[in-house]
C-alpha cells in the first residue's frame, strides 16, 4: 500500500485534517498546496539581501505574478495551510543529515516570496547591487551554499544570467545533490517562467556545475525514504510499459514547467492530464494492472489490492468537501474510474456514462462515499425514505435530466421502497460492504476481457510473455510435434516463437490459429488466422477457419466473406464464384453456389463442411446437421468435424445428441479444450449445472486462458447455488476448483 501511504501519510483511514497538514506526506502536501493552498503570509519574511523600500508588514498585494501560480492567490481549501508545505514535504523527505540544506532552502523560499513592488524596484536597476555579484565564498559550507543559492536567486531577479563560480568543497552528499538539483530545477522554472527553456537550463546548469552536481545523472546513491517508495511503486506499476527512466520527481518538474500559464485550481490536474494525456498515472497503473492480470492470474490478490488502493485513493481525495476540489477533473477522473464509469478502450480512457448522474449525485450528497455503500451499510431501514426525499428535493438540480425523467416516471417512492426492501432481504445476495468492491473487481475483470477483445478484434495478436521456445532452432517443427501430441498450450508457445522468428510464415500462423481455436480462444484464433491470410491469401484451410471463427463470434458479414473466399480460391469451384459478387454478398446467393459445388463433387467432404458452416450462419440447423453428417461419412476420424456437428446440434437445442458428438470428438482428441467446454455448455443448457461445472473446470485445467469458460463457469456456479466457490472462480484458483469438482 505504498501509494496510499504516500497520499494519506498514514496507514490508517485518512483524515482530512491530517492529510492537509501533514508535512511528513509529500504528495498529500503537494496536492493540498497546489490545488487548494492559500495566499502566503509573510510572517517568516526576514531580512532580504536586497535593500528595497517596502513595508514588510503589509500584506502582499494580490495578483503577484512574480512567482506564477495560484498558490499565492485565492485561498481555497484551508486558509491555514502554507505554500511552504510545498517544500516542507520535500524537505522532510530529504536525506537525513541534510539539515543545513533544509535551512538553506527555507531561506530561499522566504526570499522567493517577494511581492512585485520589490521586484519592480530591482528591475529598475541597471544591475544587481554590487554585493550580489560576489557571493561570499568564505565561511562554513552552509553559509557558502546559502549565499551561493541566494545569489542565484538574486541574479534571477536582476535578470542577469547567473555566472558559475568555483566553490570550495561543500561536502554535499548525493542525496543533497539530488535535492538541490531537483529543487533548483523547479525553482528556476518558477523564477524564469517567462524565459526560454534554454535559458532556464543554462541557469540551472550553471548553478549545478558550480556545486559540482551532475545535472543529468539521477541519484544512484541512497534516495530519500519517501522518494524510494514512490519510485519503487512507480517502477512497479510501469512494469509492462516502456517508459524512459522517470524518477519520481520527473512529473513534478514537468508540472512546474506548465504552471506558468494557469491560474486556476484545476490547473494541476489539467496540466497533469495534458502531460500524460488521458493516460495519467492512474490509468497507466491500471493498464499495467490489466496486462499483468493476463499473466498472473494466481497473483490476483495483489491486483485486487491495487484496485482497492485506487478506490481508497479516490475516497481519500474526495474527503475534502470543497466543491472546487471536488470538481477538479483529476478527482472526477479517479472517482469515475473507481466507480467503473470509465472504459479503457484502444488504450484511451473513455467515459461511458453520457450523463454523469452518478458522479454528480455523489458530489451532491456523499463526497467520498459510494451512495449505495453507505445506504446499504448504515441506513437500510430508513434508507429509502431519506434517499427519496433527498432525491425529490434535488429534482431541479443539475442532475442529468433523462435520468430524472425516467425515474420520476417510475414513482420513485415505490421503486425506492422496493429497493430498500430487497436490500433488507438480501436480494443482492452478497454482503453489502463487499458488494461494491466485488462490483469493482468484476469491472476490472471485464476490462481485461475488453482489452484483449479490442486488441484481437483489431486483428492484433497478443503474444505470451516469457516464452521458453524463443531461440529454439526449429520452433515450427517443435510446434507441430506438440500439436500432434495434443499439448495445445505448449504448441501455441512454440508456434509463437516461430512466427516471431518468421513473421511471414503462413503455416506457422495457420497452425497457431488452429491451436487457439481448439484451445477455445476464438479471439486469438482470428488474430493468428488473419496473419496467416496476409501471408497466404489463397490458403483454403485458413479461409475456412476464419469463416468458422467468425460464425462462432456471430460476425455474420465477415463469416460470409471468408466462406465465399474459400469458394473463389478453390481450384475446382472458383469458376462458380464471380468475383464481383464479393462486394455485395447475399447469403442466399452464396448458399446456392455452394450447393452447386456440392452437386459437382458429392464426395468432397470439404464442400459439405463449408456448407455446414454456412447453414449455421443462417441458423438452418437441420440442413447444417445433414451436411456435417455427410462429411463425417467421408471423414469419420476428423475430430474437429465431430465437434462442429455437436455444436450445431447444441445450438439447435438438441443437447443430448450434441453430447454424443462431443464425446466422439474427445475420444479422437482427448485434449480438445473446445469440446470439453462445449460439453459444459450442453449440460448447463439442460439445467444440469453441477455436471457443467465439472466439464468447465476440466477445460480450464487444460487451458487456464480460456476466458469464455471462466465466465460460463461462474454462471453455472451461481445457478447451482455454489456461491461459496465464486471467489475461487474469480481468483482463478484452479487447484481448489479441481479438488472440489473432479470429473469421474
Amino acid at each position, binding site marked *: 500500500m505504498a501509494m496510499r501511504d504516500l497520499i494519506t501519510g498514514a496507514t490508517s483511514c485518512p483524515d482530512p485534517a491530517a492529510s492537509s497538514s501533514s508535512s511528513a506526506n509529500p504528495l498529500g502536501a503537494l496536492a493540498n498546496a497546489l490545488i487548494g493552498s492559500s495566499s502566503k503570509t509573510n510572517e517568516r519574511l526576514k531580512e532580504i539581501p536586497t535593500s528595497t523600500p517596502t513595508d514588510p508588514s503589509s500584506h502582499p498585494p494580490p495578483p503577484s505574478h512574480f512567482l506564477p501560480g495560484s498558490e499565492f492567490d485565492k485561498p481555497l481549501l484551508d486558509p491555514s495551510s502554507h505554500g511552504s508545505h510545498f517544500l516542507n514535504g520535500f524537505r522532510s523527505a530529504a536525506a537525513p543529515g541534510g539539515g543545513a540544506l533544509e535551512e538553506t532552502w527555507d531561506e530561499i523560499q522566504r526570499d522567493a516570496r517577494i511581492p512585485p513592488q520589490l521586484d519592480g524596484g530591482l528591475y529598475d536597476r541597471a544591475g544587481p547591487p554590487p554585493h550580489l555579484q560576489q557571493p561570499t565564498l568564505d565561511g562554513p559550507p552552509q553559509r557558502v551554499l546559502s549565499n551561493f543559492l541566494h545569489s542565484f536567486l538574486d541574479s534571477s531577479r536582476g535578470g542577469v544570467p547567473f555566472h558559475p563560480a568555483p566553490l570550495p568543497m561543500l561536502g554535499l552528499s548525493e542525496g543533497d545533490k539530488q535535492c538541490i538539483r531537483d529543487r533548483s530545477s523547479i525553482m528556476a522554472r518558477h523564477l524564469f517562467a517567462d524565459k526560454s527553456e534554454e535559458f532556464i537550463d543554462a541557469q540551472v546548469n550553471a548553478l549545478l556545475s558550480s556545486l559540482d552536481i551532475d545535472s543529468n545523472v539521477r541519484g544512484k546513491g541512497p534516495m530519500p525514504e519517501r522518494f524510494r517508495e514512490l519510485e519503487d511503486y512507480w517502477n512497479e506499476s510501469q512494469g509492462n510499459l516502456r517508459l524512459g527512466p522517470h524518477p519520481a520527481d520527473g512529473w513534478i518538474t514537468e508540472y512546474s514547467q506548465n504552471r506558468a500559464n494557469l491560474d486556476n485550481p484545476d490547473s494541476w490536474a489539467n496540466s497533469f492530464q495534458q502531460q500524460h494525456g488521458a493516460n495519467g498515472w492512474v490509468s497507466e497503473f491500471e493498464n499495467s494492472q490489466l496486462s499483468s492480470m493476463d499473466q498472473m492470474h494466481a497473483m490476483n490478490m495483489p491486483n485486487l489490492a491495487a484496485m482497492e488502493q485506487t478506490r481508497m485513493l479516490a475516497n481519500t481525495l474526495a474527503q475534502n468537501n470543497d466543491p472546487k476540489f471536488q470538481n477538479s477533473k483529476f478527482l472526477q477522473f479517479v472517482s469515475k474510474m473507481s*466507480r*467503473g*464509469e470509465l472504459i479503457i478502450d484502444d488504450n484511451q480512457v473513455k467515459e*461511458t*456514462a453520457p*450523463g454523469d448522474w452518478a458522479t454528480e449525485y455523489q458530489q451532491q450528497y456523499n463526497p467520498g462515499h459510494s451512495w449505495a455503500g453507505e445506504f446499504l451499510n448504515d441506513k437500510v431501514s430508513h434508507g429509502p425514505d431519506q434517499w427519496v426525499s433527498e432525491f425529490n428535493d434535488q429534482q431541479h438540480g443539475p442532475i442529468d435530466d433523462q435520468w430524472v425523467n*425516467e425515474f420520476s*416516471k*417510475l414513482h420513485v417512492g415505490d421503486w425506492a421502497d*422496493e*429497493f430498500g426492501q*430487497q436490500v433488507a432481504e438480501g*436480494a443482492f445476495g452478497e454482503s453489502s460492504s463487499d458488494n461494491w468492491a466485488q*462490483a469493482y473487481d*468484476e*469491472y476490472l475483470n*471485464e476490462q481485461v*476481457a475488453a482489452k484483449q477483445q479490442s486488441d484481437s478484434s483489431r486483428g492484433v495478436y497478443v503474444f505470451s510473455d516469457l516464452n521458453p521456445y524463443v531461440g529454439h532452432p526449429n520452433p515450427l517443427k517443435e510446434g507441430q510435434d506438440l500439436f500432434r501430441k495434443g499439448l495445445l498450450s505448449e504448441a501455441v508457445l512454440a508456434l509463437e516463437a516461430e512466427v516471431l522468428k518468421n513473421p511471414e510464415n503462413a503455416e506457422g500462423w495457420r497452425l497457431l490459429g488452429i491451436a487457439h481455436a481448439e484451445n*477455445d480462444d*476464438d479471439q486469438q484464433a482470428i488474430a493468428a488466422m488473419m496473419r496467416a491470410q496476409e501471408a497466404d491469401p489463397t490458403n483454403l484451410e485458413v479461409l475456412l477457419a476464419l469463416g*468458422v471463427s467468425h460464425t462462432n463470434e*456471430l*460476425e*455474420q*458479414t465477415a463469416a*460470409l466473406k471468408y466462406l465465399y473466399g474459400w469458394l473463389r480460391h478453390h481450384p475446382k469451384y472458383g469458376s462458380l464464384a464471380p468475383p464481383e459478387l464479393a462486394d455485395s*454478398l447475399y*447469403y*442466399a446467393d452464396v448458399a446456392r453456389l455452394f450447393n452447386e459445388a456440392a452437386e459437382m463433387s458429392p464426395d468432397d467432404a470439404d464442400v459439405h463442411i463449408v456448407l455446414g*458452416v454456412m447453414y*449455421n*450462419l*443462417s*441458423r*438452418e440447423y437441420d440442413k447444417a446437421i445433414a451436411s456435417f453428417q455427410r462429411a463425417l461419412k467421408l471423414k469419420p476420424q476428423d475430430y474437429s468435424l465431430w*465437434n*462442429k456437428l*455437436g*455444436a*450445431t446440434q*447444441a*445450438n439447435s*437445442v438438441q*443437447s443430448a445428441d*450434441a453430447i454424443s458428438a462431443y464425446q466422439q470428438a474427445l475420444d479422437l482428441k482427448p485434449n480438445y479444450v*473446445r469440446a470439453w467446454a*462445449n460439453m459444459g*455448455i*450442453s449440460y*448447463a*443448457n*439442460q*439445467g444440469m449445472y453441477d455436471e457443467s461445472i465439472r466439464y468447465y473446470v476440466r477445460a480450464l485445467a487444460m487451458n487456464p486462458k480460456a*476466458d*469464455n469458460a471462466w*465466465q*460460463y463457469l*461462474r*454462471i453455472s456456479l451461481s*445457478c447451482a447455488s455454489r456461491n461459496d466457490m465464486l471467489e475461487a472462480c474469480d481468483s482463478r484458483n484452479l487447484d481448489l476448483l479441481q479438488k472440489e469438482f473432479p470429473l469421474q
Partner: protein
Amino acid sequence: MASESANLKSDAILDQMKHHLSTEAGKEIVKKTGLVYEFHIAPEKIGDNEVIYTVDLKKGKVTKGPYEGGKPDATFSFKDDDFVNIVLGKMNPQLAFMRGTIKIKGSLSAAQKFSPNIFPKPAKM
C-alpha cells in the same frame, strides 16, 4: 431464414432462447421467473434502428416486436454487442446499468431478475 448483413448478433441468441424455452430447462426458467421482458436492441447506438424483442417468461415465448399482452414488466435497451456480452457473462448487467451502457424502464425487481443465467449459451464449432 436468410441472413442479411443488417442482422444483429442478438438475433442468434434470442433465437436460441426461443427454442430453449420449450425444453425442460426452459420451462424451469419460466416457472421461476414469470415475467415479461422487452428488449430494445440497436446495432450501434441505443435508440437508433432498434429491433424489439419480447421475451415472455410467463408463457415461454420469444417474439419479435413489442409486447402485445399489456405492459412488459421491464424494458431494456442495449447495443447489440453489449447484449451479447451480458448474455455470455462478459459484462455485469448491474455495472452496465450504473454506467449507462444499458437503459432500464419498469420494475426494478423485475429488472434484477434479468441475468445471464436465464439464457442458453451458444456452442462453438
